[in-house]
């Protein structure tokens, strides 16, 4: 196949920039591209690059692909085109790209505590910085050219190579340029019987959706709260030898930090009514446990009701000793879901149970259950949904599918075939 001449050494007398270009030239070019990106970034005020949306990004993809194809068909033997599809070019591109990803992985992105230096070099927003976009463009050029070399003329033995390289090219290109058209909007629904078709973007822009929603019921299923001994001075749990805090359930007997604790009664929704702790369906009721605590070394005993508290009620606790209090933690959510009516138009509607991990599709939008009023917890009447629209998803998925097939090919064929050709 010999698309690059990994073994053909440059003449000893050959100076830098004499063809064929190797690693030195490739890395100089890659670094220059990165530096050029930083300069543009600084000159434009460190705001990053704004990727254009449909239809401009579609034009860019077609023009980019057409230019690569033209270069391949017309100039495939020219030294510059041979270089751009060579391994040194590819390695320089992947390496500098990896360096930027490394910085992205180390430096907190888009955080509030940023500095002028980080902004003007683009390091505070690597993924939308000029350097990153230009290096990605360089990477995609080498990747695209090498793909074309193996694709035209087509040979069956190159199929695995093509699935991997074309798959990556398409995925990165479509995900990168397509990010401009990604819409992620928040829809807040209240259990107030009203219909809603307004969604809000992160910048606070309002969008009218092509469908209308009505929240029938929002439901949170919670775990039982846990028993904990907390030092109110340091505000830390006193765990003793326990690895995790025990869930409060009726008849539980456990040892925690030198205390033997027994839960005699547990009520998942309780309230003090006329001085008596009892089950209650009232809004704001909270988990309650009647506990006995006995100090294992001194034999001191304490007993009484402890409660988690809710947005409406103060928690209650038992003082064990000094600053050590026995408390019932806030229960954690196990599952939350919204029962909705989705009106697609004036005639058709759907009743949907929306849960985490189970999005619902309507008119090109995916609707997700994302949150609720955590302060009110179980008693939240607010359900927070996210509506996502990504017209590029099929293209990206096509690229991902191609990469997955390529990965299976890689597993099955492995290295052995390739060693022979070397």
């Amino acid at each position: 196949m010999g698309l690059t001449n990994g073994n053909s050494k440059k003449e000893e007398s050959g100076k830098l920039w004499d063809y064929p270009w190797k690693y030195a030239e490739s890395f100089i070019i890659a670094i220059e591209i990165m530096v050029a990106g930083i300069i543009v970034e600084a000159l434009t005020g460190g705001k990053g690059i704004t990727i254009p949306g449909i239809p401009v990004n579609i034009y860019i993809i077609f023009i980019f692909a057409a230019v690569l194809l033209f270069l391949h068909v017309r100039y495939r033997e020219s030294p510059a085109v041979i270089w751009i599809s060579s391994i040194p070019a590819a390695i320089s591109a992947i390496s500098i790209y990896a360096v930027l990803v490394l910085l992205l992985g180390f430096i907190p992105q888009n955080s509030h505590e940023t500095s002028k230096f980080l902004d003007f070099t683009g390091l505070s927003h690597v993924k939308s910085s000029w350097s990153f976009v230009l290096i990605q463009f360089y990477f995609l050029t080498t990747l695209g050219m090498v793909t074309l070399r193996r694709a035209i003329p087509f040979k069956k033995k190159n199929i695995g190579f093509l699935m991997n390289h074309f798959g990556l090219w398409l995925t990165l290109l479509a995900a990168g340029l397509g990010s401009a058209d990604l819409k992620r909007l928040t829809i807040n629904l209240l259990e107030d019987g009203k219909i809603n078709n307004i969604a809000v973007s992160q910048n606070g822009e309002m969008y009218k959706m092509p469908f209308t929603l009505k929240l029938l019921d929002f439901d949170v299923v919670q775990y039982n709260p846990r028993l904990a001994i907390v030092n109110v001075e340091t505000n830390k749990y006193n765990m003793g030898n326990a690895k995790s805090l025990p869930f409060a359930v009726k008849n539980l007997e456990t040892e925690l930090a030198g205390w033997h604790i027994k839960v005699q009664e547990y009520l998942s929704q309780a309230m003090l009514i006329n001085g008596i702790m009892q089950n209650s369906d009232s809004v704001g009721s909270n988990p309650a446990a009647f506990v006995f605590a006995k100090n294992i070394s001194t034999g001191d005993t304490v007993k009484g009701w402890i409660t988690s508290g809710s947005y409406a009620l103060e928690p209650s606790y038992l003082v064990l000793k000094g600053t050590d209090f026995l408390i019932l933690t806030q229960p954690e959510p196990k599952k939350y879901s919204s029962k909705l009516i989705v009106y697609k138009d004036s005639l058709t509607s759907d009743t949907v149970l929306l849960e985490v991990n189970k999005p619902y599709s309507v008119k090109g939008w995916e609707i997700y259950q994302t949150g609720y009023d955590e302060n009110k917890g179980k008693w939240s009447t607010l359900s927070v949904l996210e509506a996502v629209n990504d017209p590029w998803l099929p293209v990206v998925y096509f690229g991902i599918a191609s990469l997955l097939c390529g990965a299976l090919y890689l597993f099955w064929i492995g290295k052995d075939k390739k060693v022979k050709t070397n």
Partner: protein
Amino acid sequence: MNWIYFPLYALITAIFWVIGTSLIFASKRKSILKPLGHIALLLGIGTITTFVVILWLQLGRPPMRTLGETRLWYALFLLLIGYVTFVRWGYQWVLILIFFFASIFLVTDLLHPETYEKTLMPALQSPWFVPHVIVYIFAYAMLGFSWVFSIYGLYMFYFKSFPMKVLNVADNLVYIGFAFLTMGLLFGALWAKEAWGHYWTWDPKETWAFLTWLVYLVYIHTRYFHYTKVRLHLWMLSFIFIVLLLCWFGISYMPSAKNSVHVYSNE
């Protein structure tokens, strides 16, 4: 509840797997022991599969909602992937390695019956959870072994004579590991789309996983085109594993990872 029979099934699986692996190690070429070994390994996989199927039927839902249930799948799929890798590549030690990993999950389930009931947090209750984790475990295992080969290779290179075979086996492990790394990354992306609305959000773990993928990509390409530069590749292979380890364990300590969904909980 079907879990009462779990120790029995786990024990039978382990016995089959130990017998199968022993037979394969003991067998010479064309020996009758080899097919017997394969049968034993398959019976082992069959036993644990039977348990999963029965559990599934009795629960009336895919057993994928609790911690204990996910460990069951880990064990099953690890044995399956290990077996397929053995059949394809003939590396006998993969059987031992994979059995070791699978045993960890089975034994954890045996020791912590309470986790049979412990429900996962909502976002983790997804059919993608198990495949995502399992291909990663396998990829890390393979790349970990390629690292062991690189260290062995370095030792041979500097103190003995270096046989190219060492690096060739390491390469093949890198290919297998890289294939699974790719799958793990992409399964994660597909899952993220279902759970969080987008397939890629540059979460620190994603960023580091992508970085790991890129450095192995560099290794594969330099190795492929500069086959004779042994010393470079031995050093490279031994160093890039550090990126993988940082991705696996180091994330929790990085300033960028405060809000990552991947920081492992201590419970």
